[in-house]
C-alpha cells in the first residue's frame, strides 16, 4: 500500500484521471451542445453550409462530432499505451511492491 503515498504515483494517477475526465467532458459537452441546438435553436443547424449547397450545418456538425470523438478515442489509447503504462510499470518496479 505504500505506493499510494508515493508522490510520483499520485502525480501519474492524477494526470491520468484528469486526462480521462477531460476527454470524456469534451465529447459529452459537444454532444449536448448539439442536442441543445436541436432542442432550443433548431434554426441554427438548418442553415446551409454555403450559398451553393443544400447541405445544412447540422449534417457536418453531427459527422464532425463523431469524427472528433473517434480521434480523441485514438489519442487517449495511444497516450495510455505509450506514456501511462510505461510510467506505471517503472514505478511498480522501482517500488518493488509486486
Amino acid at each position, binding site marked *: *500500500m505504500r*505506493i*499510494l503515498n508515493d508522490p510520483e504515483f499520485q502525480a501519474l*494517477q492524477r494526470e*491520468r484521471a484528469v486526462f*480521462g*475526465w477531460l*476527454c*470524456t467532458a469534451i*465529447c*459529452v459537452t*459537444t*454532444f*449536448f451542445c*448539439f*442536442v*441543445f*441546438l*436541436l*432542442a*432550443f435553436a*433548431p*434554426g441554427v*443547424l*438548418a442553415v*446551409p453550409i454555403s450559398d451553393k*449547397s*443544400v*447541405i*445544412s450545418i*447540422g*449534417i457536418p456538425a*453531427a*459527422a464532425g*462530432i*463523431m*469524427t472528433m*470523438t*473517434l480521434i*480523441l*478515442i*485514438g489519442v*487517449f*489509447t495511444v497516450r*495510455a*499505451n505509450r506514456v501511462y*503504462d510505461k510510467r*506505471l510499470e517503472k514505478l*511498480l518496479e522501482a517500488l518493488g*511492491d*509486486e
Partner: protein
Amino acid sequence: MNRTLMSVVPGLLCPLDLWAIEGAGAPINVTAIAMFMVFVIATLGITWWAAGRTKSTDDYYAAGGGISGAQNGLAIAGDFMSAASFLGISGLVFFSGLDGLVYTVGGTVSWTVVLFLLAERLRNLGRYTFADAVSIRLSAKPIRTLSACGTLVVVLLYLIAQMVGAGALIEVLFGLPYEVAVLLVGVLMVLYVSFGGMIATTWVQIIKAFLLLSGSTVLAALVMVEFNFSFETLFRAAIDAHPKGVKIMAPGGLFPDPISAISLGLALVFGTAGLPHVLMRFFTVPDAKQARTSAFIAASLVGYFYLITIIIGFGAIVLVSQNPSFFADGVIRGGNNMAAVHLSQALAGDLFLGFISAVAFATILAVVSGLTLAGASAISHDLFANVFAAGRLNQSDVLRISRWSSLILGVLAIGLGIAFKGQNVAYMVLLAFAVAASVNFPVLILSMYWRRLTTRGAVAGGSVGLIVAVCCVVFGPTVWVEVIGFERPIFPYKYPALFSMSAAFLVTFVVSILDASADAQKEAEAFDHQYLRSVTGLGAASASSH
C-alpha cells in the same frame, strides 16, 4: 434459383415447405434463408466446439479470459450494434433526416465514457459480472441483488424488444410466420448460451460484427457510387425525393419538447456504460490493457458504423422512397425499419438483398445471445452463488443453474415475444437504456471514483433510479397513452433519463453522506485498497489456467 437450391440442399430446406404454406403472404426468400442457414450451421458448429472447452465457471462466464483485445473489441461492437442500430437508425434517418443523427452521435459519444472512465478499472476489479467490481468494497448481498435486478430488467426489456422486432422483421424478410421466427431465435440463443457459454457467444458476436460491418460498408459504398461520391448530389437528390423536402436538412418534430431531447441524450450517452451484456465482455480479456484495446476497437467500429449508417439512411430516401415496388397500400413494405433492406435490393438485386436479410437476422440472434448470457450470469453468479446460497455452491452447481437460467430466459423471451406481437415495443429499448443509465451506471461509476459511496447510498439511489425510470415510462405518453389508451399522460415527457438519473445520483449522494454507520466507515477505508487494484491491476482476477 428456387429449384436449384432445393436440389442442392434438400435436407436443409425441407421443413421450409411447411412454413411456406403458413407464410403470411410474404414470399419466401430462398437466398436469404440459404445464407442464414450457413450462419446457423457455422455458429452451431462453434457452439459444439466451445461446449467441449467450457469446463469451469471461468470458461462459461469469461471465456477463460482467453479472448484477445482485438477479438473482444469486435465482439463488443457486435453486442452494441443491434438490429435497432442498423435497421432502426437508418430507418429513422430515412423517415426524419437530420433528427435521426442524434442517435448516431449519441451512440458514438457514449463509448468515450466506457473507454476513458470504465473499461480498465472494471477489468481490474471484476471477474464475471459488473456486480463483482462493485461488491469489492460494498456489502455483497444488497449490492448484488440490486445489480442483478438492474441487469434483469435491462435484459428482459431489451430481449422482448429484440424478439418482437425479430418476429416482424423475419416475417417480411424470409416469409416465415411471426411465431416460427420468434421460436427459432429463442431456441438458437438458448443453444448457444447454455452449451457454449461465453466462448460460443463471443464467436457468434465476432462473426456477426464482421458480416454486419462488411455488409453495411458495401451498402454505403454502392450508395456513394450511385451519387458519384458527391455528398452534395446525394443530399440534393434526398431533398427532392423526400415528402418533407428541404426540411429533412433541419431539426424537426422528432422531439416533442426540449426536456425530452435532453433526456434522450442522457440515456444514449450514459446507458451504454450500464448495459450488462457489454460490461461483462470486459472480463473475457486477460488484463486491463487488453480491456482498453477492446474498448478502443469497439468504439472505433461503432463510430465508423454509425457514420456510414447516415449514408445508408439518406441513400434510402432517394433510392427506396421513389421506387413503387417497395410500397404496398401507400406505405413502405415492412415499415421504415426496412429502409436499409429495401435499399440493398434497389442497389444490387436479390442476392445482396438475401445477404443483408441474413445479416439482419444474424444481428438479432447475436444480440439476444449476449443478453441471455448476461441475464443468466446475473441469476446464477450474482443471485444464487453469492446471495441465496453464498459459498455453498460448487462450480458444477453454478454452471447447472446458469444453463437452466438461460433456458428459462429463453422460454420467457419466446412467450413474451409472442404475447407482444404487433405492439409498439420501441419504448422498451428506451426504458432499457434509461434503467442502465439510472441503476447500473451510477452504482458502477461512483463505486470506482467516489470514496464516500456506501452500500446504503448505492442501494437507495439505484432502487430510486429504477422505480423512477419505470414509473416515468409507464405513466408517460408512450405507455399510458399509446399502449394503454388513456387520453392524457400523467408524466408529460417521453424519455425518463433526465429525471431517473438525477434522482438516482441525488439519492445516492445524500444517503451516502448521511450514512454514519460502522459499515460506511469500513467501506470508505477499503477504498484505498480497491483504488490501488483498479489502477494497477495488482490482485486482479487473472486469466484462467489454460
